[in-house]
C-alpha cells in the first residue's frame, strides 16, 4: 500500500446515518437527528451515546442517510397542495376522548 493510498484511507469521511428513537413502548420511532459512523453497529452505539443521555429511549433505529429517497422540495405544490382543500380527510368532526394521548 503506498503512502497516498494510506492517507486516502485514513482521511475518508465516515458516512452519515439518520437516527430514530422510540421514546416509550407504544409510540413510534421518531427522527431525532443524524451522526457520522463507520458502520451501522458503530452508528447504533454512537446514537445511544449522543441521543439517549437523559433516558430518552427504549429503542433505536439507524438508517444510512444515502438510503433515504426523498421528495424534492420543488414538488411541494404538486404533491401537497391538492390535500389542503379536502377538510373531510381531517379528524376534525368528532371529539377525541381525553384518554387518547398520542394522536
Amino acid at each position, binding site marked *: 500500500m503506498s503512502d497516498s493510498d*494510506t492517507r486516502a484511507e485514513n482521511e475518508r469521511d*465516515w458516512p452519515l446515518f439518520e437516527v430514530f428513537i422510540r421514546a416509550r413502548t407504544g409510540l413510534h420511532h421518531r427522527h431525532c437527528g443524524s*451522526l457520522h459512523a*463507520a458502520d451501522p453497529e458503530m452508528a447504533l*452505539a*454512537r446514537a445511544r*451515546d*449522543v441521543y439517549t*443521555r437523559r433516558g430518552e429511549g427504549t429503542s433505536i433505529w439507524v438508517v444510512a442517510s444515502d438510503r433515504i429517497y426523498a421528495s424534492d422540495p420543488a414538488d411541494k405544490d404538486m404533491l401537497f397542495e391538492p390535500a389542503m382543500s379536502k377538510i373531510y380527510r381531517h379528524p376534525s368532526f368528532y371529539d377525541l376522548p381525553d384518554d387518547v394521548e398520542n394522536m
Partner: protein
Amino acid sequence: MADALTAAYAMRLGDDALILSHRLSEWVGHGPELEEDIALANTALDLLGQARLLLSHAGDREGAGRDEDALAYGRDLLDFSNLLLVEQPNGDFAQTMMRQFLFDAYAVELWPRLSASRDEGLAGIAGKAAKEAAYHVEQSAAWVVRMGDGTKESHARAQAGLDMLWPYAGQIFEADEVEASLAKKGIAVAPSELRAPWLARVDPVLEAAGLARPEGAGVRSGGRRGRHSEHLGHLLAEFQFMQRAYPGAEW
C-alpha cells in the same frame, strides 16, 4: 462500623475509577469525531459516578469523617492506591482505547462477582457498575478490533499501545493482605480469580484484531501501595488544583 480493610479496598476500586475517569475527561473537546468525543465523556461520567460511590463508602467504613471530596481532593499522591494502568497517559486514541479495553475486560469480570459481596454497600455499587462495564467493554473491544484490523497505521498504533500498556495489566491480579483477608470473608473478590476470565476476554479480541500479545514482558506494580509513575503527580496537580488553592470552595 469502622473497618479499615474494607475502607482500603473500596478506596482502591474508587481510585481506579476516579483516575481513569479523569484521564478520559482529558479527551473532551479533543475527540477524533464529535460522536466519539461524547462517547468518551459518557464513559468518564460513568466512572466518576462509580468513584463517588466507592470513595463515599470508603469514607464511611474508615469512620474518620472523610467524605468523597476529602478523599478525592485532599489526599496526596502517596495515598492514592489506583492501578498504574489507569494513570498512564492517553497517548493517541489507539493507546487510550487499549488502556480502556484492558481495564474494562477486568471490570466486567469484577463487578458481577462483587455484587455478591457480604458488604451490602459494595454489593449495591457493584450491581450498578456491572451494567456500565458491560457496555464499556463492548465499545472498547470494538475499537481495538477496528484499529488492529484497520489500516496499516491504525494497526501499528494499536500494537504500540498494547506493547506499552501490557506490563501494567499484570498488576490487576496482584493481591496483598487487604484483598486476601477480605476475600476470605466474602467481602472482596480475590484478584487472582479474575486472571483466567480476563484472559478469556482479552485473547479473542486481540486475535480478531490481529494484534500480538507481548511475550516476556515483566509486571509493573506498586500502585496499590502508593508507588506511582510520574504521570499521576501531573494528573493530580490539575485535578486537585482548585481545592488546593481554595480549600472548601463550592459553586
